[in-house]
């Protein structure tokens, strides 16, 4: 196994890892603060891709503007979903099953609407940058490099927000002590909605980046992204939060890359599942996943 193979593995891991991180950080963010899995996350991806497509090809805006408009649009989508629909359930301390079903329904509505508006025909977004570079004998396309850069910068940005700003401190406080946060005067509802809004922005950007790599169908979010993200998030562990999910993303990326190099690609997903099972049996990061009896 030469230097080229090593380089290929490193690059594949970094790229896949950053894709997974983008998928997972949004989910983990919500899970840590509001304690539910947002099953509409996949549909936010789809929304992102189709929104950019619409701005680019129908309204004929330029690429940069389209992506720029995507950010507030995704934020509004997530914010509205949380503030006006899901918040009611959270207030009622509904069980996670209910929240999962509710977010899934929202996701279903979003994607069905996209299907009705845009039709099912395959579409694709153009690459922001064409071409590829070489790195120690292995190649990486500029688009993948862009994903890596965006993913890492967003991570750093979020880490900064969580640790250094007032809003971030409030978010972290809410994750640990909801009642005390209320007393401290934090507008919990607005905070929650902001968290989901930010998560939606991550998903929207992820959707845009994905829309360049695949042929878009109006449900690619909920059929592929959602489940991959969910699996990786679970591997990261419930309590581990952001750090755990980032670690899990890169771990899964690494394992997938290395294993498909030596094993037939077919057996890799079941192996990942096996790992999830083993991890849960050996080190369950268990919090009780029932809203009522914490």
């Amino acid at each position, binding site marked *: 196994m030469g230097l080229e193979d090593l380089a290929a593995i490193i690059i594949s891991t970094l790229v896949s890892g950053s894709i997974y991180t983008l998928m997972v950080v949004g989910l983990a963010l919500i899970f840590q603060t509001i304690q539910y899995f947002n099953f509409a996350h996949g549909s936010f991806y789809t929304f992102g891709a189709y929104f950019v497509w619409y701005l680019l090809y129908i309204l004929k805006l330029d690429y940069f503007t389209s992506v720029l408009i995507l950010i507030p649009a995704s934020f509004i989508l997530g914010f509205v979903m949380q503030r006006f629909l899901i918040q*009611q359930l959270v207030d009622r301390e509904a069980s996670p099953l209910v929240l999962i079903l509710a977010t899934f*329904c929202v996701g*279903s509505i979003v994607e069905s609407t996209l299907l009705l508006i845009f039709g099912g025909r395959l579409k694709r977004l153009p690459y922001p940058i064409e071409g590829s570079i070489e790195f120690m004998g292995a190649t990486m396309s500029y688009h993948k490099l862009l994903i890596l850069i965006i993913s890492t910068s967003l991570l750093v940005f979020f880490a900064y927000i969580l640790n250094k700003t007032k809003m971030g401190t409030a978010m972290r406080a809410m994750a640990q002590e909801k009642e005390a946060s209320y007393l401290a005067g934090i507008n919990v509802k607005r905070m929650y909605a902001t968290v989901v809004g930010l998560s939606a922005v991550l998903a929207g950007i992820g959707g845009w980046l994905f829309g360049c790599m695949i042929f878009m169908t109006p449900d690619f979010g909920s059929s592929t992204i959602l489940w991959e993200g969910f699996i990786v998030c679970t591997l990261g562990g*419930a309590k581990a939060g952001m750090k755990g999910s980032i670690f899990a993303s890169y771990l899964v990326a690494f394992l997938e890359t290395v294993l498909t190099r030596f094993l037939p690609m077919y057996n890799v997903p*079941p192996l990942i599942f096996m790992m999830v099972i083993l991890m*849960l049996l050996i080190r*369950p990061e*268990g919090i009780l996943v029932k809203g009522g009896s914490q």
Partner: protein
Amino acid sequence: MKFSKFVIPFIAVGIFLIIPLILSSPFILQLFVLIFLYALVCESWDLSMGYLGLFNFGHLAFLGIGAYFSGILSLYYGLPSWIAIVVGSLITFALGFVLSLSTLRAGEYAFSIISFAFQNMFLYWVRSGGGPAPGEWGKKGLTLTGGTQGLGALIPVPSLQLGPITISSEFKVPAYYFTLIILVIATYAMYKLTNSRFGIATIALRDSKEYAIALGVNPLTYTAVFISISTFFAGLAGGLYAHIMGVVSPEIIGWSNVIIMCCIVEFGGLGTLFGPAAASFLLVSLTQYLAGLAAYKNIVIALIMLFTLLVWPTGMAGAAFWFKSKYLEKIKKAIFNWKHS
């Protein structure tokens, strides 16, 4: 009074018994067969989700295991269908027991996720074909589970022979009555279970664990047995599905089915038995009624679910109880007054 609790279910069963005599459309009869099978799966799912409060994401895996294993046994090994179905259900019972016993130790969160992972792995295995089919079928190129084509694609899974009666999708009326009878018996069994000492004790574990343990209830074993009974019924439904439809394909345990069943359980009302049955009838019929609208149908169903979750979380069963508690007495009084006026 105990009898009055069952008035609605009795009336419903009565109506269901008469339906084939009025409506002879094979389409509607087949739809009802599916409704009954879905109801069976959802009721058993409610045992673990509603009564125990444990998210058994992998419940449908047992539906699949029951379907595939009983299908394989009768198709490739020539077992009589009813034996294959019973064996399939016993396999799911045992697997459910082992799975829940080993994972509940690690906590409820672990249980949920592991059952989810288990279902995914089973789906993968089924899609991959699981190796060549036994005996001469393998030499013909058939795989054990049929891969993406499914089991019974070429040679259908044998139908259920009960003496002179054949239960299959060829003859809708026997299939209709048979599944209805199985559903009624199973519901009764589940009702008895939830009201038995064992059942009540296990359910009590959810709310007051320490008290239950103090009373000598072994939480893990009790829960595991309870769950394995629910998986037994899932496997039974799977076995019936395989032999009535003749074909089992991986989509039966795919995400669209998981979501549909989840919605049925939720819409029916967690923690009840008749709720999921009624919801199965309503949601499946609604889906068929709206089928012409394609994507609009998904939106309507999603909106109905959101409405249920947001505004009326106790579902159908809750609505029925609310109605009864609020209006039944008034109606009774009005009838009484009218009779005696």
